[in-house]
């Protein structure tokens, strides 16, 4: 409920600030197309937050998947031309990286924010090594128009994102796995005691998140018809902000796919509005930072976290 109000507030604020231009169909459509890929990433991360963990490896895994995808699709550097078969392969790569995150957390028993921090670095490094620092043009002409296209006025990336959101919503509300995720996020010790295979669920969630990162990577590179090893740069911060602003509590167990959608829309609209009002990009960064802190401050269940470190 708070999120709907926040969105309305942002729309109103910038609607007034730009004398209505902000709310024009053209701009709203722009917002939707801007929000597509960030929403997909936010949907990926929010699941990890839901079970009470953290994933900082987003940028690394996306960069890695982008580089690999760039070499699998027809490109100037090798003879591979896998076309749409790239998609399942890259999803599998992302899933594998994600599962590694999960295993480090459950088997080696490392806190997720350290293991994913290290994974970020490792994946990014591998991406740069593989990519040799170059941008790779995408020679297959089918990808770009698909990603940049529209259906009934709605950008395809947004449609994909909403479709993914719907799938995850069903997962969260109507499957055993979803209930287990909420249980673990709510109270991991009790969930374990109730008989839930906590480790298994955690690895699954990280794996699914990784696969979604792969999807985001493919969409990212096909939008520009070119892949590069820094494709993931700067994607973590807005996604985390969207997760927090949407109301997915960092303590776990609260929120869901709908929150991710609202959070992304609010953050995208906020940034779009700031651009329209010609606010310097550096101030925008600062605003995002403050919004993140404020959103977390408001949604955090401090009693559950016990000691804030």
């Amino acid at each position, binding site marked *: 409920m708070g999120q709907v109000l926040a969105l309305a507030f942002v729309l109103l604020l910038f609607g007034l600030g730009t004398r209505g231009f902000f709310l024009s169909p053209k701009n709203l459509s722009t917002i939707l197309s801007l929000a597509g890929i960030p929403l997909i990433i936010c949907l990926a991360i929010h699941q990890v937050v839901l079970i009470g963990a953290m994933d900082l490896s987003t940028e690394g895994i996306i960069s890695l998947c982008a580089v690999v995808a760039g070499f699998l699709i027809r490109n100037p550097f090798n003879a591979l031309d896998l076309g749409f078969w790239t998609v399942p392969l890259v999803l599998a790569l992302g899933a594998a990286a994600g599962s590694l995150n999960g295993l480090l957390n459950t088997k080696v028993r*490392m806190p997720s924010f*350290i293991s994913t921090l290290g994974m970020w670095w490792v994946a990014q490094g591998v991406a740069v090594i593989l990519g040799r620092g170059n941008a790779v043009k995408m020679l297959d002409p089918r990808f770009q128009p698909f990603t940049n296209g529209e259906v009934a006025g709605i950008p395809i990336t947004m449609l994909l994102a909403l479709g993914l959101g719907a799938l995850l919503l069903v997962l969260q509300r109507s499957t055993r796995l979803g209930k287990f995720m909420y249980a673990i996020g709510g109270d991991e010790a009790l969930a374990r005691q109730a008989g839930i295979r906590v480790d298994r669920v955690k690895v699954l969630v990280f794996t699914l998140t990784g696969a979604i990162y792969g999807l985001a990577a493919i969409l990212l590179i096909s939008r520009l018809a070119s892949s590069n090893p820094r494709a993931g740069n700067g994607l973590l911060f807005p996604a985390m902000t969207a997760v927090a602003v949407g109301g997915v509590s960092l303590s776990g167990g609260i929120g869901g796919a709908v929150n991710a959608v609202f959070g992304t829309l609010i953050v995208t609209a906020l940034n779009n509005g700031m651009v329209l009002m010609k606010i310097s990009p550096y101030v925008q960064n600062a605003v995002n930072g403050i919004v993140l802190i404020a959103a*977390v401050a408001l949604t955090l269940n401090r009693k559950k976290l016990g000691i804030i470190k």
Partner: protein
Amino acid sequence: MRAAWRIQPIHISLAMFLALVAGFTIGDPSFLSLYNAVTILNSVAILLAVGLGQVCVILTGGIDLSVGSIMSLVSVVFMMTLGPLGAWSYLAVLAIGTAAGFLNGLIVSRLRIPSFIATLGMQGVLVSVAYLLSAQPLSAPDTAYGILELVNGKLGPVQAVWLIAVAVFLVFYLMQRYTALGRTILYMGANERMSYLSGLPIDRARTLAFAFSGFGAAVAGIILSSTLYSGYPTIGAVYVLNSIAVVVVGGTAMTGGSGGVVNTLVGALIMGVINNGLTVVGIDVYAQQVFLGVLIIIAVAVTFDRKKVAIIK
């Protein structure tokens, strides 16, 4: 009564350091040359400064993701104030860095926000401020070259940078071992609940730990921008992970309460050797990143005190 002898992480770190030096020398004998040693020590100075700041926060059980942005902001402001303020710029930017850290500390201890979110947010704000001050890289004005000799100069064979590093190390060492603040930082990391019940001023200690982190980052920023004669808003970005690596590889546990300043010194030496050695031996810069990522994971996996944390999230 004599101290009981037990293997501590620092012994492992020292062993690792010796093994690395040996390994790299075998790989390429020029590793052990005087010139290379000087290069290594120069980079160690920066790593040490930022690592010492980071370890204060990590000892309390938190983490400071804003150290890189503090370094960047300091570098930009430093270049800007060298002209008008001359040698006073040193003090000005030290104050700014410490103030930024202090602000971090307040957000964590008063607003009760987990440190990694608070510092993640702050780094965004600080980088923005740096960009607002100067979107383009700033160069040191020619008139300032003399002032920068404080960092770039030499005293006989000894680089000024090393003296600065030693001085900073002493400051942190004295603080950690011999002041009530340093002890409180250590004790609250070891057992915060007990520290609270024993009346230790944990909120104040936490805030000051972040302030010290800002101070360390500011020193690192000064050294870095002095040696490069320039400052820009992304100059410190890579040092966030580097500072964590320095702390962790040195044997300080991320759970807090064990390890400390001496461990960080060893960690800085190791990281300096690794960064340099990998380049000397011919491994490219990007592979180094992978290596470091793996190293961090291993170091944390080994030092993490699992008994202290019932549930690993």
